[in-house]
């Protein structure tokens, strides 16, 4: 039946076209199929990257199309590396990345470990836990902003109920000390399920017979956890840390929606600074240089990390 269809299609193909197709090798045909994707990638990924590299050496400003673009050499890079505000933004980013990854890994792994016990109703609870991850960051940012609202927010009321501090004095988004934590809490709430899912895959990939052998050797639960569970799930945990690290290094939407970088500049992570320089101050050359620095930093760190991950996997 299939051959008959193929035959009829072949017969229906006009002779000139059929001759052309017959002349293309398998490799040529493969290139023909993937070339649209390659062209698209070149147009929307590779070209902008090289264009940004070029712009980073110029004084170009997108809001002054008629101005002569001058080559400024490494001036933009020098200025960024000597700019105190940029370093503060990098510190803020590092603080955010460190705490979100730490909390998400600890809570995510613990949840995965609990879910892996396969207690009654574990499938239902897994679905419930995954819900935050399925929401749009725009939705999450907006409703947490209401939850944090000191006059009407449930979060403030809950804290007030527990601590006795009046709800109106719990300004999660307006207090300099609390604002960074308000973002860490939301990001942890939203993305811990993702870490949990990866860790759960890791835990479920450990063969049962290893635990059975450990039981025979009378290894305690604690010993089994340290000697079997953790080492064997480690590559998965490290993968989750890598994914979340890269994502959080370039975190923009949640911060923008919750605090906009404020109060003051206390939650101004690198991506917010970059957006301000590029699309509010219109310093295109300068912001291109900053984007390249961030790209190199993430790319470099991710590479080192992947090498470490491979070593762990080989053990």
């Amino acid at each position, binding site marked *: 039946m299939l051959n008959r269809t193929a035959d009829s299609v072949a017969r229906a193909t006009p002779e000139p076209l059929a001759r052309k197709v017959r002349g293309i090798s398998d490799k040529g045909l493969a290139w023909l199929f993937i070339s649209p994707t390659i062209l698209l990638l070149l147009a929307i990924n590779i070209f902008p990257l090289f264009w940004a590299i070029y712009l980073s050496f110029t*004084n170009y400003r*997108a*809001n*002054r*199309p*008629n101005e002569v673009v001058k080559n400024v050499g490494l001036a933009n890079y020098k200025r960024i590396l000597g700019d105190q*505000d940029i370093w503060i933004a990098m510190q803020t980013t590092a603080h955010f990345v460190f705490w979100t990854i730490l909390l998400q890994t600890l809570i995510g792994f613990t949840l995965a470990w609990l879910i892996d016990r396969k207690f009654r109703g574990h499938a239902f609870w897994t679905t419930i836990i995954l819900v935050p991850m399925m929401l749009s960051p725009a939705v999450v940012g907006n409703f947490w902003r209401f939850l944090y*609202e*000191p*006059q009407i927010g449930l979060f403030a009321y809950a804290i007030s109920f527990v601590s006795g501090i009046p709800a*109106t*004095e719990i*300004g999660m*988004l*307006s207090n*300099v000390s609390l604002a960074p934590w308000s973002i860490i809490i939301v990001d942890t709430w939203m993305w811990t399920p993702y870490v949990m899912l990866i860790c759960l895959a890791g835990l479920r990939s450990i063969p049962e017979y290893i635990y059975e052998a450990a039981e025979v050797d009378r290894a305690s639960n604690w010993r089994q956890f340290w000697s079997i569970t953790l080492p064997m799930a480690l590559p998965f945990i490290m993968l989750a840390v890598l994914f979340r690290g890269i994502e959080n290094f370039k975190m923009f939407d949640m911060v923008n929606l919750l*605090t*906009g*970088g*404020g*109060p*003051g*500049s*206390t939650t101004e992570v690198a991506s917010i600074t970059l957006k*301000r320089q590029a*699309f*509010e*101050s*219109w*310093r295109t050359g300068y912001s291109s240089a900053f984007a390249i620095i961030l790209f190199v930093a993430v790319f470099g760190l991710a590479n080192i990390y992947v090498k470490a991950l491979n070593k762990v996997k080989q053990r």
Partner: protein
Amino acid sequence: MKSTLKLTLGLTSAMFASTAVSNVAHAEDLTLCWAAWDPANALVELSKDFTKESGIGMKFEFVPWTNYADRFLNELNSKGKLCDLIIGDSQWIGGSAENGHYVKLNDFFDKEKISMDDFVPATVVGYSEWPKNTPNYWALPAMGDVVGWTYRKDWFSKPELQKEFKEKYGWDLAAPTTFDQLKQIAEFFQKREIDGKTVYGASIYTERGSEGITMGAMDVLYSFGFKYENPDKPYEMDGFVNSEKSVKGLEFYKALYDCCTPPGASNSYMGEGVDAFKSGQVAMHMNFAFTWPGLQKDENVGGDKIGYFANPKGPDGDQFAQLGGQGISVVSYSDKQEAALKYIKWFANKDVQAKWWSLGGYSCLNAVVKDPSFPASQPYAQTFLDSMAIVKDFWAEPSYAPLLQASQKRFHDYVVAGQGSAKDALDGLVKDWTEVFQDDGKM
């Protein structure tokens, strides 16, 4: 058969003809770009008259304030043809003139006998001229606006509160005429129980993302003696931006924020201010005059319950207010400049301007605002006039965006986040602004 054929042909021709006519009409449609706010709705209503008179259809592209600058500056910078007419913010005028985004209107004004002398002088300088104070016009003043204050007249007139206030401060509780008085009133109302509800002193601008805190802080700083530059030496800012008087002004703004704003008001601008006032949270409310018609009509806080006052005086008796508002310009990338100019000519007409005011827009035409009936035409009309007489505006340089970003950061860091001192913030601002002007080759 023949008659059927004729009928079919006739119908087809009619269909083609109607499509062609509608295409011609669409080709003449003008697109006007502005912010999405109450006056924009009034303009839609007003523009129906233009369509009736000229046969030119009007389309509108309104963007919320938070994205207004990003969206339309991107459109202009990319030489987009979306907007034939644009009501651009007053600070854009320098950049838009120098970068060729707007059509210069001098010849058109001369030809159509539209005189800038017929408009409120502050609005001509603020919305139309670049360079400032030179007869080079890039826009027709369209929407006059200025920062002023509303207050809860019903609370102020409560006898028990009046008595308590007089005992505490020694003067009658009324709309303040100085910033000191304003702060005393705000302190008096802060966390007070009124009608079983906790209320707060004042809503002021603290927004970080666009221009909020700069508009609010400058509104106070001007009356304390802040100057952008040496009047005799342009771009010399040291000793003017960070003068002792400016420092006192910024300290006052922070003190007002710390003592007397509602909880969580750390990122508040026009919308949040209106919400705070409408929900009965605050006794006083700083905001642009465009919000007043809506508040006046509000069932809960409008009518007899609301009062208006112009920005109060500073310690030395100086009194200024932050200019808002915009002019209407023809976009130089538009293919329909002729039709767009027709709209400007129509909009400059006295009757149209009078209707504009009656619909909720703020006319800048002298014939409208200096009409003897104007002050009594709306409860806020006199305050609007008083405020427009004392306006000052932020830099309108082509580099206004980085200048604004610098002040947003410095002010928010100090006022809201409490980092450093007012002197540090203003010294930092001089440094940032100097860098911007050096980059521009102006220093």
